């Protein structure tokens, strides 16, 4: 596999395996990430996979001299013969969503802008087969690929100051779930009762890089039942 190494400050480096957010690039990112997990390198602190790069954070003080060169050489060696075929099959995570109403205050607006009925927007959102390209920015934020272009409306002109945790939104070409209360510019079409960020768990996020995601429409009653059980 072809890749490029470049420094990211004096305590990290980037392994670049492509330049677009496509699934082939994604498989290379996962392969590199899986290989480094399987063969940890002395001095490596952690790896952060993204759309087309894997960052390796390392501790320069773990090396006597020339930390970047030493780390780069170790990474080239660890990635020797790395292939996409080594990947485990992806998990599929189902996310129940109560669409519209109070929980999806912008559903009607999305429908208007898309020239569809609210039910059609929900149907297209539920029909999608989504891929978690990466987790980043804030805890548990999944960057999903696979949104139907017919519902890909632009972001809100004015972001909300506080979007409730679990809100499901559409903005630009993207869809996703807000794991924690945060400001946000996506149109809100629904909400899931699932917790996407559980800081008490060692693996603290519901979604992980490489997962397949499907949304499932639920009623407000089902939302309440699931929220109580969560």
């Amino acid at each position, binding site marked *: 596999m072809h890749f490029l190494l*470049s*420094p*990211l*400050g*004096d*305590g*990290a480096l*980037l392994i670049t395996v492509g*330049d*677009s*957010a496509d699934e082939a690039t994604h498989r290379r990112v996962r392969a590199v*990430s899986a290989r480094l997990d399987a063969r940890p390198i002395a001095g490596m*602190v*952690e*790896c*952060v*996979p*993204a*759309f*087309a*790069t894997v*960052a390796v*954070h390392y501790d*320069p*003080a773990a090396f*006597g*001299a*020339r*930390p*970047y060169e030493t780390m780069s050489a170790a990474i080239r060696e660890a990635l020797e013969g790395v292939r996409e075929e080594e990947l485990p099959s992806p998990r599929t995570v189902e996310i129940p969503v109560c669409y519209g109403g109070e929980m999806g205050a912008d559903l009607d607006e999305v429908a208007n802008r898309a020239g569809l009925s609210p039910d059609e927007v929900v149907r297209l959102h539920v029909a999608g087969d989504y891929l978690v390209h*990466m*987790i*980043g*920015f*804030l*805890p*548990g*934020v999944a*960057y999903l690929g696979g949104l139907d272009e017919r519902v890909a409306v632009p972001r809100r002109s004015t972001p909300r100051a506080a979007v409730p945790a679990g809100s499901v939104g559409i903005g630009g070409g993207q869809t996703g779930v807000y*794991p*924690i209360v*945060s400001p946000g510019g996506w149109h809100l079409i629904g909400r899931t009762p699932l917790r996407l*960020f559980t*800081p*008490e768990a*060692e*693996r*603290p*996020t519901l979604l*992980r*890089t490489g997962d397949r995601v499907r949304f499932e429409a639920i009623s407000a009653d089902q939302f309440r039942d699931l929220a109580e059980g969560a």
Partner: protein
Amino acid sequence: MTLRVVEPGLLTTVQDLGRHAHQRYGVPGGGAMDPFALRVANLLVGNSEADAGLEITLGGFTARLEADALVAAGGADLRATADGVDLPNWHAARLLAGTSLTFRGGAPGCRGYLAVAGGLAVPQVLGSRSTLLRAGIGGVEGRALRNDDLLRCGSPSPLSERIAAALAGRPGAVVVAHSGVGVSLRPDYSANPTIRLLPGAHVDGLTNQSRQELFRSPFRVSSESDRMGYRLTGVRLELTEPIELLSEAVVFGTVQLPPDGNPIVLMADRPTTGGYPRVGEVATADLPLLAQLRPGDTVRFRPCSLEGAQSELLARERGFELLRQAVALQHPSRT
């Protein structure tokens, strides 16, 4: 030992050296803004350098000791006093139960650190005790300290016990260690520092003029600056053409350039990834200088090679190691 918060000050949080295994889940690294200061303060009281202490922003903080304690202040000199007696920065001190410990505030600098022997024993969340305000995790209930918060400390190490015993041999309710951190090891905090910047992945996307201005002009730390990042104002930096970028990892010290041309330096509580062009990364050895800036202070950047930044960092670590050995040698185990 327990500390009771009497005045929380503007923003006082529990911090250690941050979370280092969960950025792939979007969990920011966090930790002390000036990690060097916290590590040194910990070392002076015989703690592990990664123990949790307090990060006190600008001052106004008072706590009462519920038992005898060994403490050290580091970072910005926030004019600490114990029942009115000055506690010099970068020195250990032994205080008696009932003492009031106050950080009044002073300049230059923004963030003072208090280490207590045994470390602050708040629960670990994702491998760290650091408060991450944005996610509401770590520290005390994921928030800044309030009046009447109780902070329990862990068991002091054998070295902490020996340091405390040595100071207990001298009279007084407040006993300050004679030797502290040598001036050569202390960061040279200033309200207008020049900071080493490694040219970033997209620095060549700047216009010629902006590339020169990045390393020549002063930038002011705006009031929209916090533990997540510093927004800098001054000359606006321009790209020759817009750079479309896929989100990817950023680090403590990444200098991002959003479309408005005002650079943002990402700090301890930065997001794990970002999608703006990166014009540079601050040399890790200089992060303490940056962490101590207040809104209104000015900063200049000077270019630095990767080799230069890393050898500076290794030199800094050797100095730190000498200090660790000196503390241990001054308080030898009797066995």
